[in-house]
């Protein structure tokens, strides 16, 4: 026991020395190692007497929601002005750019739009301001599953802005509204024109598509204690089910090259029956030749299981290096109000984080599938919560892809997945 302690101490001293060396070296090169931020939670009342200007940073503003919210906030607030800065064209690019600014302690951005899967990583690095008190104060107007995506080690590091959950689009004249995944696949196998398209390329989207089925089949990646649970009968069952679907023609083999947009384009050709995609596709399909021919359904249940899904969406995080935290709080207060959340749906076709918005008549007129969307959102679960999430997701999508493309057996892939996730969790 004694030897263990002294060895531990020695290692601690060594790593501390190494940290100092690395820290000074990084600083010398202009990088600057981030420091752990254990600062107090931001005061929810701080927004009331805020002034000055704030800068909101994020990815490409395809729906116009970021700019639109900044403008509406500036008009409504009167004291604080907000502007939106696009820092990357894709999600990956936006993350890289955000990480660079945060590592460099830049105060350029007061608020970062963060993908729900970045929370643990950004929080563990001390890059974000603790929003626990703010989230607690706003909790009664936010859908609980969306709040969960901002949590890391019992604290809330962001506020949900808009959410996202998978939906099934189906051709009403050819196929039935799906109740279970088994029924969907059986129906899809009946004729080539009934087939199912989803996102099966080797990338993050495949992790989402796979987890949607795994969660509804009762499987999981990590349990609530963070233990690896992927090596399970459910994982095998879902993988075999997906492989069988590719073999019997339920799903076109082309899905192995599809991310969101190619899947939508293929579906728009009218040669498929079902499509799994995000809510924003509704507007695009309505502008295509398929207008009026398709229905929208929440994700199906697993036979004998339950309905589930995987939460997407974007949160608002305050940078630890922001010089105007009060202004940022005011912005977040505005963006999460039930009133503005209606506009999130009506003006920008995004899924609100406020439940009442889904049953508002004005919203329903613009988003007739709001009820199905709310069902999907409420049933959805977050992806594994871990600061090494990118590695965990790679272990999932690379191995799932290997099984789907026929280069690995289910058994080997499940074993690999478990091993790689366990190794990722041990990352220093």
């Amino acid at each position: 026991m004694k030897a263990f302690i002294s060895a531990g101490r020695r290692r601690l001293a060594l790593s501390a020395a190494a940290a100092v060396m690395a820290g000074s070296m990084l600083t010398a090169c202009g990088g600057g190692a981030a420091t752990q931020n254990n600062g107090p939670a931001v005061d929810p009342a701080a927004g009331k007497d805020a002034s000055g200007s704030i800068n909101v940073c994020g990815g490409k503003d395809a729906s116009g929601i970021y700019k639109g919210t900044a403008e509406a906030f500036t008009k409504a607030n009167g004291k604080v002005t907000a502007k939106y800065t696009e820092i990357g064209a894709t999600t990956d690019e936006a993350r890289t750019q955000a990480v660079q600014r945060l590592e460099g302690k830049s105060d350029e951005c007061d608020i970062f739009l963060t993908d729900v899967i970045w929370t643990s990583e950004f929080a563990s690095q001390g890059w974000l301001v603790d929003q626990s008190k703010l989230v607690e104060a706003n909790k009664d107007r936010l859908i609980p599953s969306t709040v969960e995506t901002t949590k890391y080690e019992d604290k809330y590091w962001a506020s949900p802005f808009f959410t996202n959950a998978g939906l099934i689009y189906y051709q009403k004249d050819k196929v039935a509204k799906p109740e279970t995944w088994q029924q969907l696949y059986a129906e899809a196998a009946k004729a080539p024109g009934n087939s199912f398209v989803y996102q099966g390329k080797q990338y993050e989207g495949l992790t989402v598509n796979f987890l949607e089925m795994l969660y509804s089949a009762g499987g999981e990646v990590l349990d609530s204690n963070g233990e690896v649970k992927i090596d399970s009968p459910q994982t095998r069952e879902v993988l075999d089910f997906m492989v069988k679907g590719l073999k019997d023609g339920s799903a076109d083999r082309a899905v192995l090259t599809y991310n969101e947009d190619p899947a939508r384009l293929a579906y728009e050709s009218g040669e498929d029956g079902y499509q799994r995609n995000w809510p924003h596709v509704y507007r695009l399909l309505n502008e295509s030749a398929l207008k009026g021919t398709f229905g929208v359904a929440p994700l199906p249940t697993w036979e004998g299981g339950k309905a589930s899904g995987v939460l997407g969406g974007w949160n608002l995080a305050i940078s630890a290096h922001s010089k105007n935290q009060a202004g940022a709080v005011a912005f977040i207060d505005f963006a999460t109000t039930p009133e503005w959340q209606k506009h999130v749906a009506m003006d920008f076709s995004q899924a609100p984080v406020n439940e009442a918005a889904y049953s508002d008549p004005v919203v329903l007129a613009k988003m007739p599938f709001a009820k199905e969307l709310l069902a999907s959102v409420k049933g959805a679960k977050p992806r594994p919560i871990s600061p090494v999430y990118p590695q965990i997701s790679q272990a999932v999508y690379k191995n799932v892809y290997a099984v789907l493309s026929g280069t690995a057996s289910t058994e080997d892939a499940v074993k690999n997945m478990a091993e790689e996730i366990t190794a990722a969790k041990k990352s220093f």
Partner: protein
Amino acid sequence: MSIKSLSPGRGVSARDRAERRLAIRMTAPSLILMALVAAVPIGYALWLSLNQYSVRTAGLSRFVGLENYITALASQEWWAAFGQTFLFAALSVSLELVLGTAMALLLNLAFKGRALLRTVVLLPYAIVTVVSAITWQTMFQPNLGLVTNVLSALGLPGGDVVWLGEHGYAMAVIVLADVWKTTPFAALIILAGLQVISAETYEAAELDGASKWQTFVHITLPLLRPAIVLAAIFRTMDALRVFDLPFVLTRGANGTESMSMLAYTQLRENRLVGEGSALSILTFLTVMVVSVVYIRFAGGNIREVAKEEQ
């Protein structure tokens, strides 16, 4: 080894020594600049590769020596990427050299509008690789793509293949995209080589009654060798560092992950700075070794040419 032979003073006049000092002084600025732009980043990457940086706790790191290299060299992923990158390089560079030589021979003929055509063939090379990769992706898309549709319409095999979702086929698309883009570059270098071959050599061959083929094999090819080797070195170094084509087309699926992609994933996506830097250094060393081998075994001609010119 005697000290005498090492000493520069012997048999060298004072003037020579002064000149040598002057040479050092004159090259010093460029050497220092080279050190700054090349050696510093490489040295920094080397240092990073000998450490581990925590992805859990900000600012925490430890010196691990060669551990990152051992992990990389023991991993199946590295060797798979290594093999795939070499396969890609071998296929694409050999096709580019053959087609590039043919293209150069055509462009060297005297015809009207030659200057314009020489500019036009460079167009693919001027297009950003990511953009051309997205174009290829669209063309090979199942059901909707131009290539798959044309193949189906003509009743040729491949029309119903999911090209980017299949082992072998995916590599073929990536090689094709690279050949399309960089063959003009190889052609341009080889064309420059063609133009220094004097017309007299060909006249002499014609007088001796050599056929076109004999002229090509015995005169053009040997005299073109330095240019072809140069094109091969440039193209091989580029091909071994390939990143954008597989990144856009397949994300590394179906046996197309390259060494650079692996390094990128570790560095950028996973923020494993130590491991990622070790992979970058390994990629760098691989490219270095290959270039040295090239120059040693295939580049004899280049040195001879250089000597003759002196």
